[in-house]
């Protein structure tokens, strides 16, 4: 293939494709009503998370033994917990913690997965075999069991939860990136840029990786939902975010006592609903993104 061909291809195909693409992505996404609703809900939750100190009615950690286990009043809209702390304020601050854990953990494993998947797909051979077998083993093992084993040794903390979820979450991303490398390596446009002397990094970052961004974004979106669920489960068990820092899961931890479960529904129902609402919103958002961005899944 000559350089002239390459230029024609780029001129007639790529540029209009992109302009047309952007319009269809938004209109396709808009058509998925639940995805738009999910986006709005996430916007609100992120707003609450960022501005928690400004909008929370009380200090989330202010202990008040005078009015503990108080049902909802106009002063404490969601009542108070066993230490007299304002539940609504704790949930607002917990929004910040739970969303951050989800986002940071996924950011960690997207980076690891992209690098390892890229290395495996680009170099192939035994490097590929080792990385992918490792991915198989991690994927086939229940994450929560590995996490509680590791946490029992390094101790539970918000930082460790992010780190462990991040270190265990990379295999799907790595598989995806590797797959993109394997399908694209032999394609004409890659061969073409090789033939005009493009360097390996240029081919990797300029030509192959951009093709993997769409599936990575979709996968990472669902991943944030998964990470929030994992953090909630761990914190519920007392192995995740440690009090007094509030997370949705560790507020629910109090509901392990049946007296609190029966007599103080205002304490455990709201944080549970926050988890459901955020995870549902992110899953719908991811579903909408997949429909809109992934031409292979388009119906």
């Amino acid at each position, binding site marked *: 293939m000559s350089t002239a061909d390459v230029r024609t291809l780029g001129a007639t195909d790529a540029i209009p494709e992109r302009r047309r693409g952007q319009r269809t992505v938004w209109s396709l996404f808009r058509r998925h009503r639940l995805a738009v609703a999910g986006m709005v809900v996430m916007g609100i939750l992120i707003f609450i998370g960022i501005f928690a100190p400004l909008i929370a009615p009380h200090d989330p950690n202010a202990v008040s033994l005078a009015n503990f286990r108080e049902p909802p009043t106009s002063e404490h809209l969601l009542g108070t917990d066993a230490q007299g702390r304002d539940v609504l304020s704790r949930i607002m601050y917990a929004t910040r913690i739970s969303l951050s854990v989800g986002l940071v953990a996924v950011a960690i494993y997207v980076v690891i997965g992209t690098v390892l998947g890229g290395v495996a797909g680009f170099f192939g051979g035994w490097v590929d075999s080792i990385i992918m077998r490792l991915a198989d083993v991690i994927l086939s093992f229940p994450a929560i*069991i590995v996490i509680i*084993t590791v946490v*029992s*040794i390094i101790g539970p903390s918000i930082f460790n939860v992010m780190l462990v979820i991040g270190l265990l979450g990379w295999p799907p991303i790595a598989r995806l990136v590797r797959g993109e490398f394997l399908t694209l390596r032999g394609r004409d446009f890659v061969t073409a840029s090789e033939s005009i002397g493009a360097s390996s990094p240029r081919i990797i970052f300029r030509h192959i990786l951009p093709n993997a961004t769409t599936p990575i974004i979709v996968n990472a979106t669902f991943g944030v939902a998964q990470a929030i669920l994992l953090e909630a489960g761990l914190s519920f068990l007392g192995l995740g975010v440690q009090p007094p820092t509030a997370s949705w899961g560790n507020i629910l931890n109090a509901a392990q006592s049946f007296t609190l479960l029966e007599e103080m529904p205002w304490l455990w129902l709201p944080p*549970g609903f926050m988890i459901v609402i955020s995870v549902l919103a992110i899953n719908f958002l991811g579903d909408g993104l997949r429909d809109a961005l992934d031409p292979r899944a388009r119906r």
Partner: protein
Amino acid sequence: MGRYLLRRLLISIPVLIGITIAMYAIVNLAPGDPVTALLNPEQMSNLGPEWVEEQRQALGLNDPLPLRYLKWLGETVQGNLGYSTVDRQPVAETIGDRIWPTLKLMLTVIVISVVAGITLGVLSALKQHTFFDYLMTFLGFLTVSIPGFFLGLILIYVFALRLDWLPATGMYTLGQPRSFTDDLAHIIMPATVLGLAQAAPIMRYTRASLLDTIGQDYVTVARAKGLKESRIVVGHSLRNALIPIITIVALNVPSLLGGTVVIEQVFAWPGMGTLAISSVTGRDYNVLMGINLIVAIMILLSNLLADVIYAFADPRIKYA
């Protein structure tokens, strides 16, 4: 078939060894010394550091890590998983007591999720683009978005604490002779919570694959022969669609095992999940390692079992 199984079993050995190496390394990063951890400080000051050193030497703790791993592996292969540092029982016995409740729960969940998933999947495919279909899609999203422990707490709150219909925790009523109805009453809630999450992917798959077959020639032929619509769906479309569900169930075994850890804790189910949590809080590393090993074996065996069932269900598949 026999040779295929043997080969598969042999292939899983390196995977198991890999897992145990990783586990051994992680557990040995644990702070604390096994000798001093078991002694009270008063005794230790009497015995002195020389004695501790002697014990370390005697227990082989001064050997290099790879050598200690090989010794551990040798014992493990013979079924000796060491002793629990909390209840002083052999780990194999401790886990042996807990593995059956977990297996019972898992099998119940698999039955519930397969029956519910297929039924709802077929119904929503038959009623495609109706309110029921959309409702099922939404509920599918909801069941994978709701944390199992939260759903469990809601069920306990409603059915055990408010209505008092079902027992909140445990596997059977203590101090009463075991009966089927009592066992059933105890397993309903935990199995439902786990079953709903597991049913969602089966429902989605059944719906999609049934819709795929609608345009196929053999379905048109069946219709042209004048078969009843129910015969076409059950006898022709569904039959082929069902086989891959075996794979879906097998692939979901890890997530099911992970789910049982949390759900067992919520319902105080006396299985491996509650054991894992209590050994984390008690820093009982031998038990934790044993659980990890058993979980790995369970997952490898479930994959193998899925392959075997597959070969029986689909005569086109032959393992050489």
